[in-house]
Structure formats: C-alpha cells, structure tokens
C-alpha cells in the first residue's frame, strides 16, 4: 500500500540534540554485543582449556596471552589481536556493568531529572574507563610482567 509521504510521523533520532544519555545507551547495546560474542567465546575457550589439562591450557596461553620466546609470526600477531580484544572486552564489561546498574536504577523510577540523567550518563563512562584502566594495569603488572 502506498504511503502518504506527508503523513505525520514521530520524530526520529536526528531531531534531537545529541547528549551523553544517547551515547551511553548505544554503548550499552554495542558492548552487550561484544560481550555476548567475543567475551563469552573467549571465556568458554579458557574454561575448556582448563578442563582439557596442561597442554590445552598451554595452547590457550600461546595463542591468547603470549607464545614466549619461540613465538611464530602468526602467534605474535594472534597475541596482539587477543590482547587488544581482551582490553575491548574488559572495557565492554565495565561499561555494560555500570550502564546496567544505571538502567536498573532508572527502572525503579529514579534519576529522570535532566541534570541527573546527564550526571549519571557521564559517571558511567568515567567509572567504566577508570575500572578498565585499573584492571588493565593490575593484569599487566601482576600477571604479564609488563
């Protein structure tokens, strides 16, 4: 059926002035997707490699963490890919985590004043980036010896 192009339609995204609440919203979705795919598959690989014994765990470490001194070019490339992916997953985790807490609080009906919406949205990014930096530094210094 042909649509009347002049029909009244509800305003879409481009009508509104962009604000931090919109950024936090789309980041929640994007980070959720990253966690659901890359995050969970890596976690399952890690769990399966533990259950598989010493050798399979060494295989996981060689591909994901570090292949040591005798690393092939492919392994070195894979290591850097997975390190960057790991950083993205850690950030996604904290972003989704704090953003999720914000959602749960707003579901209770709290924080709908414009200034509060703005403050909470910015706070989510600050908390996520801070937690990511802390965990990344902790992992790098304690477990990877960097």
């Amino acid at each position, binding site marked *: 059926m042909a649509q009347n192009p002049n029909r009244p339609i509800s305003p879409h995204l481009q009508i509104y002035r962009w604000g931090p609440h919109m950024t936090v919203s789309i980041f929640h979705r994007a980070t959720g*997707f990253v966690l659901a795919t890359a995050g*969970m598959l890596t976690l399952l690989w890690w*769990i399966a490699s*533990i*259950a598989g014994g010493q050798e399979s*765990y060494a295989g996981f*470490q060689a591909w994901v963490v570090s292949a040591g001194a005798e690393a092939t070019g492919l392994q070195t490339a894979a290591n850097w890919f997975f390190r960057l992916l790991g950083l993205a997953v850690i950030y996604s985790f904290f972003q989704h*985590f704090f953003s999720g807490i914000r959602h749960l609080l707003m579901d209770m009906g709290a924080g709908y004043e414009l200034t509060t919406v703005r403050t909470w949205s910015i706070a989510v990014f600050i908390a996520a980036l801070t937690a990511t930096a802390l*965990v990344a530094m902790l992992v790098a210094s304690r477990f990877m010896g960097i």
Partner: protein
Amino acid sequence: MGNGTNLGRVRGLGSAKHGTKHWVDQRLTAVGNLLLTSWLVLSLLMLPNFAHETVAAWLAQPSVAVPMVLMLVSIFWHVRLGLQVLIEDYVHDDGNKFAVLTLLNFYVIGAAAFGIFMVAKHAFTGAPA
C-alpha cells in the same frame, strides 16, 4: 492462518498476561550477572597467578564450579533476551529474522551447554595432569 476463531486471530501477536515477562527476565538475569560476574572478577584478581595448576585447582572447587555454572546460565539467558531485541530492531525481513533468531537460540543453548559440561567434567573428574 487462523482466521476462524478469536484465539486463532490473536495467537502469537503479543501479551496474554505475560507481556512483561521478557522485560522482567532481562532484569532478573541482569541482577544475577551483576552478582556473579563481580564474584568472577574479584575471584580471578585474587588468584596468585594464572598457571594451569592454580586455575585448575581453583575451578575444581564446588564453591567455584557452582557459581560458574550459575553465571553461564544467567549470562546466556541474558544474551538470549538482549540479542533477540537487537535482532528484532535491525533485521526487518521476516525470513531473515526467523533464521537469525534460530541461530541465536542455537548459539546460546549450545554455548551454555558446552560451558556447563566443561565445568562439570572438570569438577567431577578432577584436574588431569
């Protein structure tokens, strides 16, 4: 399809007193994830190192294997609900939508079953050398 009866006309089109179930389940699993992933992160950071013997002994304990299994259930249920909304928002063609939602169901159930089996196998049979 279903032109005859009142039930036939409304079946599959939405709420029959369970309209909020999806929304509530997503929040329920969100709270589960909040607790269980917090446990996982703190638990991992408290390990002395990530050598195989350390993590294998850690994962074999009931106090680790049980929350790990619960976490996998809670997370993959949450993934199921969250990605369903994502797919419904972005995949408009009915056939493609059906196909992608089917893949999503296969992914979450398959991945969760795999993860739970691995944790259980490890906890029940102990760490292989």
